[in-house]
C-alpha cells in the first residue's frame, strides 16, 4: 500500500511536503556562551529532519517574556531571530513554526532569581515552589510577549508559530481548575487568556500559520482540563488557528505527556477524534513511532497529520525511507536519551541512533564477534559502506542480552530493533552465523562485541534470571544500580503471582528511570502489583529461606522471605585480547552498561575501521 504520510498537506495556505510533524522538544544544543539563542546545533538538528523529508518542524519552545526562564538554556524569543532565520532557511521546503511559550508555575526561579508567575499561588508539585499570581500588568505583558514573538518569528522567515498550551505551559495552567483559582475575569472564564493570546498572535502574523499545542486531558477529571472542556475551548479558538496538536498531561502527570513504551503507541487517537473541530488541521501526537500506525491514522481520517518526534530522532530520514519502501530504524520508546528536560543539561540523543557518522571507503573484510546491539550496529555500518562482514554469534539467535530484556514489560520494542537489524543486514547480504564461536585472530580487522559476564557470587545473576527464569518461591532482587531491569523483572514475576521484594540503596527503587520519565509510574505499578520496595537498604545476609537487609543510614535490619536472591548488580567485562591495531572492543565487553552505549560504540568502531 502506498504510504500517505509522505503526501503534502496544506496548512493555512502553505504546503507542507509531508503529513509528518517534528514536534518541539528540549535539546540542550545551545552554545553555552549564548544559552538563550538558537544556534548552529539547533540548525543542524532540524536540517537533518527536513532533509529526511519531514513536513512541519516546530522549533524548541522559546519563552515570550524574559521573566520566564524554565531551564538554563531555554530559548528566549527576543534572542531567537537569527536562529529562526537560519533554521527556516535550512529546512525548506519543510514548514517551520516557531514554538512559543511561557512555563508559568512549572518554570524555574534558579536563573532569574525572582518569583515564578502563574494564574494562582499553587505550588508546582515538582518544585514545591509557590508562584506569585500574575497581576493585570503581567497578563498584558504575556499577551504582548506572544504577539511580539510571533511577529518576530514570521519576520525572521518562519512559516508561522505554534503557541504552547500543553505540558509546561502557563496557558494550560490558566485553562485548568487545578491551577487557576482566580476570582477575576481570567478565573471566571479560564480560556480568556488563551483567546486573547491567540487573537493577538493572529493579528501579529496575518496569514502565516498559527498552531496551537493544547492539553485536552489533564488526567485529573476532578478539576483539570477534560476532553469535553478542551473541545469547547477549541471551538472558541478555531477561527484563530490553522493547526492544533492535542496532547495530554498536567503538572501532576508530566510523564504522561511523552510516555515510554509502557503506554501504547498512538494512545491519543480516540481522544483526538473526539476533540476535532472543523476547519482546523488536527495532528495526532503521542508515541506515534511506527509508519504503519501513522498511515492508518491518516488514511482513516482520524487526524490530518501525525507528530513523529521520537521516531524522527531515531530515523531522521523517516519520511524519505518510507517513501522509498523501506523500514526506518525503529524508535524503542525508552526515553533514555531524548527526554532531556533535566537540570544537568544533557544534549538530546537517541538510544538507537547515536550522533556518530560512520562512513568511508570500503576496506578489507571485518570479523564481528557477537550479535548483540554493539555487534549488530558495527556490522550494519560496515556493510552499508560495502565492507565484507562476517558476523558470528555464539547463541542461537541474534540480539544478545536484548533478546531477554525484550521479554520484560515495557521493553518489548527491543525485539523490533533486533529484527530490524537482522532484516537490514540480510538485505545487504550479511547473515549472522548463529551458534558459532570464533577465536579472535591475532591479526586482521575485528570487532569484539561479546558482551559482559556475571560476577561470581552466591546469588542468581540477573542475566541468568532473564534468560532461564527464576526458581519457585519468594524472590528478593538485590538492585544496587537501579537501571530499571530489576524493576521490570519484578513486575513480570509479580504478574506471574510471585512474592517479590526489591532491595535498593537509594530512596526509591529504579532511580535510573528518572531519566526515562517512568520513575513515578514504576513505583505505582510495583505498589499495585504488591512488590515490596525496600529502600535505603542493602543485603547483609542470606539463609536458605530468607535474606537479611540493613538500613543504610540507621543500620536497622529486616528479614525478607526469599527462596531466590537475584543479583541485579553490575556485571563485569570479560577478559579481552590485548590491544592491537585493527582490534576494537565495544559495548558491554568494555564495561557493562546500557543498549545506548553498545550501539554508540558499535558505530564508533565502524567509523574507526572506515577511517
Amino acid at each position, binding site marked *: 500500500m502506498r504510504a500517505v504520510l509522505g503526501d503534502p498537506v496544506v496548512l493555512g495556505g502553505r504546503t507542507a511536503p509531508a503529513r509528518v510533524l517534528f514536534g518541539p522538544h528540549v535539546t540542550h544544543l545551545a552554545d553555552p556562551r549564548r544559552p538563550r539563542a538558537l544556534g548552529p546545533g539547533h540548525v543542524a538538528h532540524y536540517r537533518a529532519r527536513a532533509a529526511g523529508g519531514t513536513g512541519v518542524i516546530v522549533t524548541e519552545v522559546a519563552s515570550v517574556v524574559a521573566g520566564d526562564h524554565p531551564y538554563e538554556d531555554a530559548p528566549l524569543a527576543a534572542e531567537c531571530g537569527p536562529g529562526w532565520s537560519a533554521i527556516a532557511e535550512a529546512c525548506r521546503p519543510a514548514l517551520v513554526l516557531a514554538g512559543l511559550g511561557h512555563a508559568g508555575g512549572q518554570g524555574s526561579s534558579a536563573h532569574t532569581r525572582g518569583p*515564578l508567575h502563574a494564574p494562582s*499561588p499553587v505550588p508546582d508539585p515538582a518544585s514545591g515552589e509557590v508562584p506569585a499570581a500574575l497581576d493585570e500588568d503581567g497578563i498584558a505583558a504575556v499577551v504582548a510577549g506572544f504577539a511580539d514573538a510571533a511577529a518576530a518569528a514570521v519576520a525572521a522567515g518562519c512559516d508561522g508559530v505554534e503557541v504552547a498550551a500543553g505540558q509546561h505551559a502557563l496557558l494550560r495552567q490558566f485553562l485548568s481548575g487545578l491551577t487557576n483559582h482566580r476570582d477575576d475575569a481570567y478565573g471566571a472564564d479560564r480560556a480568556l487568556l488563551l483567546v486573547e493570546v491567540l487573537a493577538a498572535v493572529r493579528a501579529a502574523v496575518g496569514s502565516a500559520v498559527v498552531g496551537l499545542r493544547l492539553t485536552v486531558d489533564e488526567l485529573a477529571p476532578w478539576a483539570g482540563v477534560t476532553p469535553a472542556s478542551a473541545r469547547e475551548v477549541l471551538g472558541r479558538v478555531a477561527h484563530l488557528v490553522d493547526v492544533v496538536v492535542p496532547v495530554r498531561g498536567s503538572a501532576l502527570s508530566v510523564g504522561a505527556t511523552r510516555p515510554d513504551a509502557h503506554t501504547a503507541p498512538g494512545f491519543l487517537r480516540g481522544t483526538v477524534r473526539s476533540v476535532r473541530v472543523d476547519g482546523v488541521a488536527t495532528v495526532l501526537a503521542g508515541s506515534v513511532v511506527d509508519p504503519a500506525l501513522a498511515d492508518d491514522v491518516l488514511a482513516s481520517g482520524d487526524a490530518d497529520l501525525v507528530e513523529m518526534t521520537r521516531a524522527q530522532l531515531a530515523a531522521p530520514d523517516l519520511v524519505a525511507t518510507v517513501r522509498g519502501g523501506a523500514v526506518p530504524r525503529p524508535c524503542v520508546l525508552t526515553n533514555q536519551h531524548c527526554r532531556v528536560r533535566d537540570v544537568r543539561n544533557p544534549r538530546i540523543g537517541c538510544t538507537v541512533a547515536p550522533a556518530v557518522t560512520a562512513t568511508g571507503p570500503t576496506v578489507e573484510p571485518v570479523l564481528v564477534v557477537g550479535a548483540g546491539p554493539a555487534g549488530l550496529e558495527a556490522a550494519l555500518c560496515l556493510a552499508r559502506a560495502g565492507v565484507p562482514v562476517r558476523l558470528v554469534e555464539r547463541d542461537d539467535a541474534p540480539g544478545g542480552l536484548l533478546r531477554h530484556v525484550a521479554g520484560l514489560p515495557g521493553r518489548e520494542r527491543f525485539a523490533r530493533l533486533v529484527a530490524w537489524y537482522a532484516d537490514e543486514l540480510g538485505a545487504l547480504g550479511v547473515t549472522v552465523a548463529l551458534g558459532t564461536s570464533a577465536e579472535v585472530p591475532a591479526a586482521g580487522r575485528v570487532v569484539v562485541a561479546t558482551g559482559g559476564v556475571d560476577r561470581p557470587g552466591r546469588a542468581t545473576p540477573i542475566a541468568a534470571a532473564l534468560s532461564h527464569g527464576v526458581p519457585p518461591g519468594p524472590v528478593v532482587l538485590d538492585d544496587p544500580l537501579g537501571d530499571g531491569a530489576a524493576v521490570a523483572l519484578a513486575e513480570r514475576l509479580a504478574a506471574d503471582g510471585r512474592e517479590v521484594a526489591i532491595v535498593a540503596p537509594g530512596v526509591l527503587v529504579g532511580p535510573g528511570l528518572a531519566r526515562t520519565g517512568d520513575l513515578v509510574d514504576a513505583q505505582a505499578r510495583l505498589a499495585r502489583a504488591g512488590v515490596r520496595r525496600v529502600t535505603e537498604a542493602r543485603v547483609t545476609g542470606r539463609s536458605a529461606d530468607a535474606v537479611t537487609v540493613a538500613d543504610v543510614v540507621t543500620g536497622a535490619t529486616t528479614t525478607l522471605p526469599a527462596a531466590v536472591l537475584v543479583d541485579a548488580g553490575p556485571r563485569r567485562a570479560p577478559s579481552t585480547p590485548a590491544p592491537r591495531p585493527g582490534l576494537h572492543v565495544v559495548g558491554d565487553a568494555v564495561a557493562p552498561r546500557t543498549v545506548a552505549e553498545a550501539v554508540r560504540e558499535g558505530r564508533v568502531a565502524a567509523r574507526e575501521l572506515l577511517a
Partner: protein
Amino acid sequence: MTGPRVMGLGDPVRLGPRVARNRIVFPAHLTNAAVARRPTPQHAAYYGARAAGGAGLVITEEQSVDPADRPYEKLVDGTDPAVVPGYRAIAEAVHAHGALVVAQLGHNGGQSSSLYSLTPVDGADDEPDPMFREVPRPLSDAGLARLVDGFGLVASHVAAGGLDGVEVQCSQASLIRQLVSSRSPRALTFLLSVLRAVREAIGPDHVLGVRVQGDEGVPGGLTAADAVAVARAVEAHVDYVSTAVGVATRTLPMIEPPMGVPAGYAAHVPSAVRAAVSVPVIGVGRFTTPAHARDTVRAGDCDLVGVVRGQIADPAFAAKALRGERVRRCIGCNQECIARVGLNQRLGCAVNPSAGREAANDLAASPRAESPVARVLVVGGGPAGLAAAVSAARAGHAVTLAEASDVLGGQLALAARAPERGELAHAVADLAYEAREAGVAVRLRSPVTSAGDADVVVLATGARPAVPDWDARVVDVTEVLAGRVAPGGRVLVVDAGRGHAATSTAELLARRGAAVTTVTSALVAAGDLAPTLDRERWRRRAADLGITELTDRVVLGARDGVLDLLHHLTGVRETWTPDWVVHAGPPAPYVPELVTDVPVVRVGDCVAPRDLDAAIREGTGACEQFGPL
C-alpha cells in the same frame, strides 16, 4: 618537626617558594561558574572578592586533567590552552589584593558519568560509583600514564596563567583517592608520577600542594592513618598538605555538613598529619566563625585553616577575623552553596545574596551620593525586612523598621526554635546587628496602618499559615513552634509544603514525648532535606525518637477527628485518628491594608512565599526598586 610553630591566625606562613600573608585559606569548592568548560570573569571576581576580604591563600575549584572526565557540566577542562587567559584573570584579581592563589587539579575517575563525554568512565577498577551507578572501564597503565601527562599539561597552563601553584586533589572526588582506597599497588607510584610531572611543569618557584584523604566515612575505608601515610610518602615533593574527609559521591554530608555539626569535627585528620610531616598542613571542618578558625590554629590542629562557607557568607571574613570584628555568619543551611550547585546551578548564599554574582555586582549596597536621602519605612522584621533595612541604611537613607510582634526574625526566628535548627537564629541576629550598626530605627510591637511621613515603604510582611478546613484538631506548624499550642499524644504531622517545617516540628514534639507520625504525598519522606545534606542526620534522629514516616498518601479530609487518607499509588483508602494534626503547608502571602500615596515596594514572602535566600536577596535589592523619589 622543626621546633614550635607560629600559632597566630594572622601570621604569615611559608609555602615552599612563596609566603601566604596569613593562615586563612579559601579552599577548593565547586562554583558552577564555568562556561563552555573554561574559567570566566565570575571566577576572577569571586576569588578576587575573598582576596580583597583578606584571605591568605585561595585555591580554585578543580581543573580537570582529561577532557573525558566530566561528572558535571561545568567542570573546567584544564587541558584546553584556552583556559590560560581565564587563569591570568584569576591571578590578577587575587594578586591585586595580596593573596596567593593556586589551582586545584584533579581527575574524578570512576566518580563520574558518560552523560557528557559519551565515552566509558575511566576508573581505578570496575566498581560502579554509588551515586553515578555506572560501571567504569578500569584504567590501564598506559591510561594512567596519559593522565600523568594531563596533570603536567594543565600545570603548565596554570603556570602560564600566572597563578602561584598547583594543588593535586587526592581526596573527595579523585581517581587517586580511589586507587589509594582500593589499596592498589599503583596508587603511590601514580601519585608520585603526577607530582613529578606537575613539578616539572611549574618549576621550583611555584607552590605544589597535595590534598590527602582522611576519614572516608565508609566501612573499611580510608582513615586519618592513611592520610598520614600518603602525606609522609609525598612530603619531600610538596610544599604543603591539605586534608579532607568524606567521599563526594557517597558520604557527602561529611564534606559539607549542615547546621548542627560542630566546628572542628574533622580536626583529627590534619592534627594527625601535622604530627607526622614538616610541611604546613591545612585543616577544614565547618569553621564558620573567626573564633573557630583561631582556636583550631591555636590548638595546633593545623598550620592553616580552610574556611569555605564562612567566606562565601562573608567575603571579608579573614580581614574581620584578624581585626576581631563580627562577621555575617554562615548558618550551615546549605541551600545555595550545596543544594543549588548539586542542581547544576551557580553557587549562591542564603545570607549573602552577592555570592556567586560578584562579576555582576548587581546587589552592591554602596552609598549613592547622587540619590537623595529618603525616609524609608520597612514594614516587617523578618529576614526580608531586616535585609531591606540594612541595605537602605547603608545606601544612606533614613530607615525605620516596624515589626508588629515583639521579636525580630519572622518565620525564620520560629524555625530556629526547632531542634538542630538553632543556627538559623544567627542570620536574624547578624542582620539585626547590622541594622543597628547602620543606624536603622527598629520599632517592635508596631503594627503599621499608614506610611506616616515616609517617602517610600518596603512591605516585607511575609506570609500567614493556610490551615486546611478539616473537621479535626488541626494546627499549623508555626503555632506549635511559637509555643501557642502543645500537641501531645498521637500526633500526625502532615508535610504538605517543602523544607524543614514538618520534620522540625515532628522532632520537637517527639522529643517532648508525643507519638509522632509524618505523612507526605511525596514518594520519599523528608525528601527536601536531602539536597541540603540534612536528611541522613534527620533519619537517624527520627529513628531514635520512634517517628513513623508515611509516604505516597494524600489527606483527603477529616470528619469528627477521623482523617481520610488516600494512598495515591494504589488507590487504597485509610483512616487515621490522631489526637492532633499538625499541618505544614505553603502559607499565603500577607499584604496588609496600607493607607499611603508613596511608592510601595514588596519583598520576600509577601510576594510569593519562598525560602530564606529569596527573602534576604529581595530585601537586599529593595533599594534598587525605589526608583526616582
